[in-house]
């Protein structure tokens, strides 16, 4: 949203080059101990580690500075930092390297860009942005758009600010213009027709409608005093964090940030990440070594499963899944709606056509829109929680649970277990008989008599899965690095890889539909499905019918249809049907027949371009053009990374820029794609080539991060008293999913959930392992000494924890690591707010058992990505013995 690609901007090893590391929304040492290795290295070299977290965790234990905050108040803290940096760095010429910050912000971000005059900020509308529809609980972002000149072909920086034809007159660009374009020979004319007039800017950052001034006003109320009152973090600690982080940036120094699901699992999760992005832009910490924002993700290839999405809302390479909710009826409509003409995304027609070729092979032709008509559309939000709700209502008949355990890991897990009982069939693939597999015989609902086994008509299949070392293939880690793992042994007995399962299931289904002539079956009939292994591939193994993962990788990478020669990279993809490319961002991973760069294992001391393959194009730090000054030279010798050597961009990494595009290259108003951008625009995926402090598009809950309390909170919103919670969050109002109102006296304590080093997620891969189970043998609830005293709870007492959804039991772990907070209740009174923490790994099966913590959580979600809110809710406690 801020920079253009939904992934970590840097690579883990590079943290060692950071002079300051701000970890927030993550318990990095506990959840990613090996990534924390690089933090420890940075510390050994003198780097400062700052940890901001509701609990004093194993990460805090190693921090130079620990700032406690109340769960859910992150944007107040970040907003406070942004405000402090604007005041004390960007508007303070005496701050060291003042010029650097000004130059970075002016040249590389949209800070100077002027926003349309219809825009109203939360300052003006008491906590809401313009365009809000209270009935729909959603925004129309029309008023958030840039101000644009109507004059084309002139230098926009010299142009007067006349607004574009969007507001009146015949539309000269956009959807209709695109649809009118002749695409019989290719989609370039369509893309060209979409190019808007250039946006207006004020390089002095003085225009009151420029992003910088909007930002400054927006965050003015996030003062250190307010931070202290709303987050509970003592003011001097906050100021120390601000100073430390700011003083460790600049041309000679860089600071990095790391976050994880403790940000994303909020109704304002995406905005928290955005706030971090803004802070890093203000401090010039993007695209540079030791800088960036590292998303610490939780599953071995969760990045890969987002890139090759087993996610309803997108198809490969972050292209939108066709939907009936937008103008996507034909391929042309789809492209006219989706293509971003003034960024690298101008090439999307090539990627889309090559994707369709990968789906339907030779049957996809220009004449039939490359089979676009066969491709399914989505009709709404089909994400996890809405699907489980639909299931609970009997609208879902069949389900695959492949390496996932929603009976424990799902929110409001009791609801999800009850939903499973309404399925006709359920296929579970895993290692152990986990809670989802056996919900019909031993779930709490069955044991309590709420459900009867005999009444549950679900046909359940447990298919044993293979260990990752029992099959080959690639994982994409949190730094976008695609790594190939070899097969070490055959899986035992009937255990098979998931790839085997899907491939064999596909073969059977293709067989079942082979003779159908119904239009609805053409998609599956025409689906290309040939991944038969070669004789050599299966020669060493007992299992002879595993598909060839290399063949699949080659399809993902792409190849020329005519001679099946692999594409060297996504630059070779075509929109005329002559190339197949399953996932354009992965193109280049298999650049020649027999060359699998994911299996490349030649590390070096630093960037290790020879180890694996990082998308895109093996770049390790994205937007690394920003590691050089606008003139192409490194900002400093200490932080050199990628630079212009006179002929080309060079450096330690693959430049994230057109390799021979000189820094002096002017922007071409009549160009499309990167031609439209100048030689100083590092963010090539963005429509204006710049990082976005202000996001005119892409977000449904506001262009700027704004603090709202969690959906359930013990206090009102101190910053915007008229708007307690996010105005746009998604919520399923149902009897089995009640929410506590703000400041509900029945649930006075903040509850946050978290993970432990010793366990893994819903516990399937840890609770059955004796070596791990013994290390954290039971569910516990962390309670501060003060709260324990207040509630008469002693260490190891059994405690009942209740939320509006459910109540569970846990053993008390009374500790000084948690502390009470003194918080303004949003109405001017300071009160003590207690927090408790529950790790959520447990269920009722395995060697180590405990209540399902997710029984407590609710179905309330971030409006952008449908991520639930698991990190801040409310609860009550009582001692049971």
């Amino acid at each position, binding site marked *: 949203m801020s920079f253009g690609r939904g992934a970590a901007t840097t690579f883990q090893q590079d943290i060692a080059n950071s002079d300051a590391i701000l970890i927030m929304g993550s318990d990095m040492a506990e959840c990613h101990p090996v990534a924390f290795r690089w933090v420890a290295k940075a510390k050994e070299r003198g780097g400062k580690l700052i940890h901001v977290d509701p609990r004093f965790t194993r990460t805090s234990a190693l921090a130079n500075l620990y700032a406690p905050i109340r769960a859910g108040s992150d944007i107040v803290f970040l907003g406070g930092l942004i405000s402090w940096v604007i005041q004390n760095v960007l508007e303070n010429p005496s701050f060291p390297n003042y010029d650097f910050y000004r130059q970075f912000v002016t040249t590389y971000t949209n800070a100077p860009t002027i926003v349309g005059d219809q825009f109203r900020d939360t300052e003006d509308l008491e906590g809401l942005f313009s365009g809000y529809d209270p009935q729909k609980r959603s925004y129309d972002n029309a008023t958030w758009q840039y101000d644009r000149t109507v004059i084309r072909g002139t230098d926009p920086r010299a142009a007067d600010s006349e607004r574009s034809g969007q507001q009146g007159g015949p539309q000269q660009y956009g959807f209709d213009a695109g649809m009118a374009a002749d695409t019989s020979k290719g989609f370039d004319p369509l893309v060209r027709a979409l190019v808007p007039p250039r946006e207006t800017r004020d390089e002095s950052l003085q225009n009151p409608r420029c992003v910088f001034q909007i930002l400054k006003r927006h965050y003015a109320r996030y003062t250190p005093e307010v931070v202290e009152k709303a987050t509970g973090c003592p003011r001097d600690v906050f100021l120390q964090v601000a100073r430390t982080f700011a003083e460790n940036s600049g041309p000679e120094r860089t600071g990095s940030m790391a976050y994880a699901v403790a940000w994303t699992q909020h109704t304002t999760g995406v905005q928290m990440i955005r706030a971090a992005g803004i802070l890093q832009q203000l401090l010039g910490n993007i695209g540079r070594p030791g800088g960036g924002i590292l998303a610490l993700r939780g599953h071995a290839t969760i990045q890969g499963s987002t890139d090759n999405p087993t996610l309803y809302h997108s198809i490969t390479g972050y292209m939108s899944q066709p939907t009936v909710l937008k103008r996507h009826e034909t391929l042309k409509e789809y492209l006219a709606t989706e293509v971003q003409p003034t960024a690298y995304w101008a090439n999307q027609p090539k990627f889309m056509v090559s994707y369709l070729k990968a789906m339907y092979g030779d049957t996809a032709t220009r004449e039939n829109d490359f089979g676009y008509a066969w491709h399914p559309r989505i009709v709404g939000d089909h994400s996890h929680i809405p699907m489980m709700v639909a299931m609970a209502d009997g609208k879902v008949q069949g389900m695959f649970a492949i390496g996932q355990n929603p009976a424990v890991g799902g929110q409001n897990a009791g609801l999800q277990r009850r939903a499973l009982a309404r399925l006709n069939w359920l296929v579970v693939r895993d290692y152990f008989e986990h809670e989802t597999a056996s919900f019909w015989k031993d779930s709490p609902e069955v044991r309590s008599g709420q459900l009867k086994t005999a009444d549950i008509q679900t046909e359940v299949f447990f298919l044993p899965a293979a260990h990752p070392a029992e099959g080959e293939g690639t994982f994409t880690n949190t730094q976008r690095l695609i790594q190939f793992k070899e097969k070490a042994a055959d899986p035992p007995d009937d255990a098979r890889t998931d790839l085997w399962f899907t491939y064999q299931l596909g073969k059977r289904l293709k067989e079942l539909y082979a003779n159908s002539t119904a239009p609805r079956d053409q998609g599956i009939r025409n689906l290309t499905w040939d991944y038969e292994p070669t004789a050599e591939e299966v020669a060493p193994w007992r299992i002879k019918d595993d598909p060839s993962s290399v063949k699949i990788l080659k399809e993902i990478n792409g190849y020329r249809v005519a001679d099946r020669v692999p594409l060297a990279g996504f630059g070779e993809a075509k929109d005329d049907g002559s190339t197949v490319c399953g996932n354009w961002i992965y193109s280049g991973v298999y650049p020649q027949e027999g060359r699998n760069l994911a299996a490349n294992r030649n590390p070096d001391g630093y960037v290790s371009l020879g180890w694996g393959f990082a998308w895109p194009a093996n770049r390790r730090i994205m937007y690394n053009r920003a590691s050089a000054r606008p003139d192409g030279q490194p900002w400093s010798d200490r932080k050199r990374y990628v630079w212009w050597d006179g002929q080309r961009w060079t450096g330690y990494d693959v*430049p994230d820029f057109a390799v021979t595009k000189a820094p002096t290259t002017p922007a071409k108003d009549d160009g499309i794609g990167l031609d439209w951008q100048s030689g100083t625009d590092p963010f090539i995926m963005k429509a204006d080539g710049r990082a976005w402090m202000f996001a005119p598009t892409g977000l449904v809950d506001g262009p700027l991060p704004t603090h709202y309390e969690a959906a359930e909170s013990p206090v009102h919103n101190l910053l915007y008293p008229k708007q307690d919670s996010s105005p746009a969050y998604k919520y399923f109002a149902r009897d089995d999913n009640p929410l506590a109102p703000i400041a509900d006296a029945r649930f006075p304590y903040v509850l946050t959930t978290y993970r432990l080093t010793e366990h893994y997620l819903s516990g399937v891969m840890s609770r059955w392992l004796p070596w791990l189970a*013994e*290390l954290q043998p039971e569910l516990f609830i962390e309670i501060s000494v003060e709260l324990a005293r207040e509630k008469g709870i002693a260490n190891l007492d059994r405690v009942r924890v209740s939320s509006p959804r459910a109540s569970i039991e846990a053993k008390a772990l009374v500790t000084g690591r948690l502390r009470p907070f003194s918080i303004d209740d949003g109405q001017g009174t300071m009160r003590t707010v207690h927090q408790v923490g529950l790790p959520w790994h447990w269920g009722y099966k395995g060697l180590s058992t405990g209540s399902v913590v997710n029984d407590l959580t609710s179905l309330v979600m971030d409006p952008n990505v449908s991520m639930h809110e698991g990190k801040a809710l409310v609860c009550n406690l009582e001692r049971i013995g």
Partner: protein
Amino acid sequence: MSSLFPGLPPLEPRAAQLQPTPPTLPNQPAPVTKEPTPGAVTGTGPSSQPLPPQPQVGTAPVPGQPVPFTGTGTPASPVTFKRGEPVGFFTDATLCIGCKACEVACKEWNQLPAELGKDGQTLPMSGQSYDNTLHLSGTTYRHVAFVENFDLSDPNRVGGQWSMMSDVCKHCVQAGCLEVCPTGAIMRTEFDTVYIQQDICNGCRYCVTACPFGVIEMTEQGVAGKCTFCYDRLQSGLTPACAQACPTASISFGPIDQIQQRADARLASLHQEGRTKAQLYGRDPSMLGGLNAFFLIEDSPEKYGLPVAPQLPSRNNLPSGLLGLAAAVLTGLASMLAFRKHRVETVAAEGEEGGAAHAS
């Protein structure tokens, strides 16, 4: 440099501290046989022109050079060590994140069982912070101690600390267990480590009583168990499992003089940072001749379960031997006296064998 923090001086690159010596082990381990991967390539750099030297992150010795398989791990650059030269562990509590990777990696390599209840389920949690292992045992060779140090009267807990330390057998230069072992099962290896040969041990448990650190306990096989210092790995030139696994270099492994240097440097930098409570435990010969596994801690040793002044059991050999001897002499004399005194009477009564008795 930030004015807020006087700051650590950047450590010398490890390569400067650890002089690589050619491996001298006769028994090199199996190298990773890279499975033939189609078209593995080298040198995929962005440009063929020579670049300025890369900043070095972490460990690799030379940019662009593959990291050798053997002996890498933590800390940093490839650790080279030789037979006949002492090696050791330096466990730095200020870098420990309490992840317990050392505990599991040790159990994995040595194939040790978890400590579960009779029903196969886990035992109850201890309630002592995140420590559920609690102590070293015959099947737990690494144990991470968790010490919570927070001022509970201060709601803001200013200066609060949570420190963790991975405990292990100290492999003492003067080892109590080794002294007392009556079967010779406990031996000193060519790496100066202390090793229990479990196929010789007969389970007398004397070593259990002798260890000043409470390291040794019995296994289910009836023999004594403790850290082997991965003797098998050492002999093959491999880093011990715990040190290799440790993510934050809290456990450093290497030739003893090199890790002592590392420890000294680390201590100095912590002191410079103002963390004056930091101290080395067992680094100097004053403690049992020096511990081959020594520690950097930031609190008093007892907090981590370490004795302040560990002693060899053999310190008692002399006093108790002498007292026993004295008692034996006294017993002999007293008995002699008693027996002789009454003997006179009986001689008077029977009057025959006096001469013979007096002959002694």
